[in-house]
């Protein structure tokens, strides 16, 4: 057995009282299964307890540990050091306020998601007001498959960091636009017109330049880029008839 491999981590460091950010270097042992988050937590425990990093679920489902590793947006908890090279640069997500080190303020994600009215989880239709007991009839689990899509979003903000134009806080951004498309695909009582009006904006669906970086980095397979394009097709189908004078109200389905 050879001695365990080590990797040099160059970690972005910044505190609210610092004049400028800096990069600190840490050498950490790296096994074949060691993730970037494992390495950062090892640094925190054994080398520098002041290193701040967000994490929660450790399996790529909560979306808290998004960061840029060698310039690419990833979830640190499911990104193994193996294959990243001997020197790994770790930086916070772009376009967000850095609270400290790798910790960014996620307000910029949720401020965009909230107006769209995105549901947290898909609740099946058979749930009644009393919850458990109302749902006590097995055999009626709806197969949603296609429609399951958007609740896959884990609100990690990788798409906003990767998007070439989401540095502008006015741009609704990939996650919220994909959420809007999701709401329109399956409105569940929400007002589709209002959502359509929200995204039909120079800073809404039309701000996107179809670079598809969001879809490339999305760790949950949401394909926000594709969703934005479907949203635009929906907008065109709704607005074009008015442009040529044949106004008719199309209720988004």
């Amino acid at each position, binding site marked *: 057995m050879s001695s365990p491999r080590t990797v040099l981590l160059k970690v972005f460091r910044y505190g609210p009282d610092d004049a400028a950010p800096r990069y600190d270097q840490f050498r950490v042992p790296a096994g074949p299964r060691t993730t970037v988050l494992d390495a950062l937590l090892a640094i925190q425990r054994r080398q520098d307890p*002041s290193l701040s990093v967000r*994490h929660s679920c450790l399996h790529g489902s909560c979306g808290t540990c998004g960061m840029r590793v060698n310039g690419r947006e990833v979830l640190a908890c*499911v990104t193994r050091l193996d294959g990243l090279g001997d020197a790994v640069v770790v930086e916070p997500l772009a376009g967000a306020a850095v609270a400290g080190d790798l910790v960014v303020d996620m307000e910029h994600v949720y401020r965009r998601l909230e107006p769209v009215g995105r549901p947290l989880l*898909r609740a*099946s239709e058979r749930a009644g007001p009393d919850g458990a007991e109302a749902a006590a009839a097995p055999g009626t689990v709806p197969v949603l498959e296609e429609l399951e899509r958007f609740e*896959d979003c884990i609100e990690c903000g990788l798409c906003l960091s990767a998007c070439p134009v989401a540095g502008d806080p006015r741009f609704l951004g990939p996650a919220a636009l994909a959420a809007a498309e999701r709401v329109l695909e399956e409105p569940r009582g929400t007002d589709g017109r209002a959502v359509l009006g929200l995204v039909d904006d120079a800073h809404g669906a039309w701000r996107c330049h179809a670079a598809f970086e969001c879809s490339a980095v999305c760790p949950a397979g949401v394909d926000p880029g594709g969703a934005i394009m479907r949203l635009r097709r929906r907008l065109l189908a709704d607005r074009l008839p008015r442009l040529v004078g044949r106004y008719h109200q199309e209720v988004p389905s």
Partner: protein
Amino acid sequence: MDAPHVIVVGGGGTGGALAHDLVLRGLAVTLLERGELTSGTTGRHHGLLHSGARYAVNDPESAVECIAENRILRRIAPGSFEENGGLFVALTDEDMDYLPRFLAGCAACGIPTRELTAAEALAVEPGLNPALKAAVWVPDATMDAMRLPLRFFATAQRNGAQLRPFTEVTGLLTTGRAVTGVTLRDHLTGAEAELAADLAVNATGPWCECLAAMAGVTVPVQPSPGVLLALVGRLCDLVVNRLHMAGDGDIVVPQRRLSIVGTSAWTVTDPDDLEVPHEHVLAMYREGAKLVPAVASAAERAAWSAARPLIGAIGGAGGGGGRQLSRTFKCFDHAVTDGVEGFVTITGGKATTLRAMAEATADLVCAKLGVEAPCRTREVVLAPHTAYYTGRAA
């Protein structure tokens, strides 16, 4: 201004629910968490909203808590659960022998069940092992391990609680043997400070012995990690449990487009130093595949460990006596147990019972501080989790 100030140490689900409960009762609350909220045990669990059926035979006290909280949480946190339900699946003759006790236990605890034949079960959940012998439907559900607790934090914050993530308690301020506040370090700024309080609550889960030691007291808690395995793909739509006495790898929880297989158990002294033993990962694969065969060939998303705070043989809640490692919770008033005033520990329990743990603790805190205010957390509908991020003052 004159409301007593309570410091809650620990930003897990329990701390969040406690902060929510205490501000509703009119107290001034500051919550301190050394990392991100839910970064300890809370965020790492498999995302199961327990029906209580898992504990119905062995640990009826926990089972009753679970089904009660299951109903309350669905009411106060609408939209936070997949109404998917759960199945307990019998695969062997031994499992079938356990079935009557299981049904009786559930009935005794008030947990609704419905027996299904193998064919019926497969119709409901085609992902099941087709060799199953029978199954029982129970009101389990999938929740989001981080976002459900975040709703408590969001609501607490909205009602005036001061939430301070990335702020670690480095010591306790004491007067005589009484705790009168904490010393803390803000990890983002590096600043150290003191914060006075009328009472401090130790809600640090498996870390509670560390904080208790600062007050010179002990808590009978055993950090007990378990390995969880996240697989790529939604291999089942319902929560699938093995119908037998609790064992390793006996549950598969669908979580969005992942499936979580849990769990194993051992004990450690330092909950920060958790291994992920490879043989445990293999055991999850092996046992999980018995329930849902697709587990065997599913790609691994991640394997990780989470430390439960299990209450050891010393105390046990509600006269649990010598029962080893119950899944119920216990609230310790250290004035009573150790003669240390101003310090309360809440530990044990599980994600499903976070609100009940908070209620019991808040009852104790209010009694100690002479505050007369009823618990309102059974009725107050929680703010959406997004409000935690958007509702913070700049």
